[in-house]
């Protein structure tokens, strides 16, 4: 049995369904991210685990105990907020001690735990400071220490890095992941930032309009998206309407240009309309020896993006982005030229609509 089980959970506000039949089992020590755009229901799901929202239907089990209707202060769940939510009237040490103090732990135990947490987040010189005297990154580390001090069964992180600048985000997310691994704590991380989710998670739940689109490891989510939304939301993607030409050979046609896919299309019929997706980095200029999946493309535009050069090509009437690594000796084609481009069979994804 899984450690945290969210079973058939639905949440409605009035007539609006915000989360619809959400099912997820999380193992102990696992780091799971809920990824999706604003309004997809990821924060509401997190808040139901925290106890701030009560599900309209379904159950939440934590270590075998039903916590669906339990008050937030009875759940032993730590929460980190986007706005840090440190108590302005308390110092760093008092903030960290708060959870233990309301649980009426002994003074010695509180002092020892506060010391442990301060060491964990490397803020030894700031224990007597008030939140306003700390930077955003430091405040969020205190918030992490405060949540961990109570030995929570699950750590919930609601977009904790969104208010920080890019450099701090990257370093703090690595720090959060390292601490989570060190303590072996089960964590749920809510974000709309795909890079954050891909870099930090054991598993990602891609959500859209209250529904779970796909659950998988970051590798699976990026390389093998199962829905158009999942493919579009995680990473950039070319997607096009195509027609099945030969189901047995998994051959499809995009405006007359033939591509072979690794996806089994035997259950489809010739002439069926399908949606095809190819990641920009999987397309490349074809070498003379290569024969399979080679199509003619017109060069429409070339954009320099630093480490990557994005080339916009037109295959039939469909426009595709093609990404290639930048190097000083790159021989780029001229705009308007017709070149042969290719991709592997595995790069041609056939998605559910």
């Amino acid at each position: 049995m899984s450690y945290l089980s969210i079973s058939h959970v639905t949440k409605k506000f009035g007539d609006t369904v915000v989360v619809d039949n959400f099912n997820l089992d999380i193992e102990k020590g696992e780091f799971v991210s809920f990824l999706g755009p604003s309004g997809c229901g990821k924060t509401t799901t997190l808040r139901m685990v925290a106890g701030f929202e009560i599900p309209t239907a379904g159950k939440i089990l934590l270590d075998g105990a039903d916590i669906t209707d339990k008050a937030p202060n009875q759940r032993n769940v730590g929460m980190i907020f986007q706005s840090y939510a440190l108590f302005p009237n308390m110092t760093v040490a008092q903030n960290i001690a708060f959870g233990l103090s309301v649980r009426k732990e002994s003074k010695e135990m509180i002092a020892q735990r506060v010391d442990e947490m301060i060491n964990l987040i490397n803020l030894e010189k700031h224990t007597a400071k008030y939140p306003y005297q700390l930077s955003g990154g430091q405040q969020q580390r205190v918030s992490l220490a405060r949540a961990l001090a109570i030995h929570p069964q699950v750590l919930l992180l609601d977009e904790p890095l969104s208010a920080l600048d890019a450099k701090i985000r990257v370093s703090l997310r690595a720090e959060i992941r390292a601490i989570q691994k060190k303590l072996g704590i089960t964590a749920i991380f809510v974000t709309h930032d795909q890079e954050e989710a891909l870099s930090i998670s054991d598993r990602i739940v891609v959500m859209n309009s209250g529904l779970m689109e796909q659950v998988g490891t970051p590798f699976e989510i990026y390389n093998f998206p199962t829905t158009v939304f999942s493919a579009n939301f995680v990473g950039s993607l070319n997607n096009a309407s195509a027609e099945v030409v030969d189901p047995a050979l998994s051959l499809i046609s995009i405006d007359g240009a033939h591509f072979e896919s690794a996806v089994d299309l035997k259950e489809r019929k010739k002439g069926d309309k399908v949606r095809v997706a190819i990641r920009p980095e999987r397309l490349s200029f074809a070498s003379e020896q290569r024969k399979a999946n080679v199509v003619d493309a017109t060069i429409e535009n070339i954009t320099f993006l630093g480490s990557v050069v994005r080339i916009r090509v037109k295959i039939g009437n469909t426009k595709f982005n093609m990404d290639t690594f930048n190097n000083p000796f790159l021989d780029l084609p001229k705009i308007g030229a017709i070149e042969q481009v290719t991709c592997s069979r595995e790069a041609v994804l056939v998605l559910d609509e």
Partner: protein
Amino acid sequence: MKTSPASVPVKVKRPFSTKRLGSFLIFLVVSLYFLVPLGATFYWSLRGQKDVLGFEAYRKLFADTNFLPAFSESIVNAVATIVLSLLIVVPTAYWVTLRLPKLRPIVEFITLLPFVIPGIVLVFGIIRLYSRPPLLLTATYDSSRVLLICVYVALSFPYMFRSVDNGLRAIDVRTLTEAAQSLGANWSAILFRVIFPNLRVALLSGALLTFAIVIGELTIALYMAQHTLGPYMANLTRSKVYEPSAMAIVAFAITWAAMGIIDFVGRGSSKHLQMADTD
């Protein structure tokens, strides 16, 4: 130690403009409007002894056997009003902010009613309502005093609610409440350890505004036959020459002291509410 030229502050001469002159004149006129009567009252209060400027009027005021009882009664009334008002307004404003934001306009309207209803109307309405069974509260001096305090609580609503509401808006009440809940805090721990301490300035300013109103209130106390500072001042004006001015200055000093306390406490605690602007 030498000071580097770069660290020497450079005085920039701002060109004379009619706009600046206009602003200065407005400031001067407004200052005179407030300060001349105050100065004149103070000057008048010092003339208690013939041909000598001194504090004779103040001495006579404090020596008056009716002054201190009236003063202390007003203080007790003010403290009771503040306590009752805080107990009603803080939980109401907190709950409206947290759970019932749609009710805010209604609560605001109710708290503003004392501004709309004139004191004289209010006091006669109250006397009529509470002078007959089953709500007979004007029968004795003490029961009338309880009623007076309740009326003062209602009068304090606009100031108290506004102060508390502003304080609640300055902090992220919802998130702080949820953070405390997730750490295991119950409602009393949330209110007394998180919310109240962060509303310190707001509560203090509401309390001191209430204090200032109750100390100087005349109409309602007079018609309810209470021996508080307001009626005492009114009587004093009828029978004495210099003592009323001394009394006005004393009342003014109390109000300014109250404002000074708000400012002093506010400086310390407003820092806590600042957000760090750098990462």
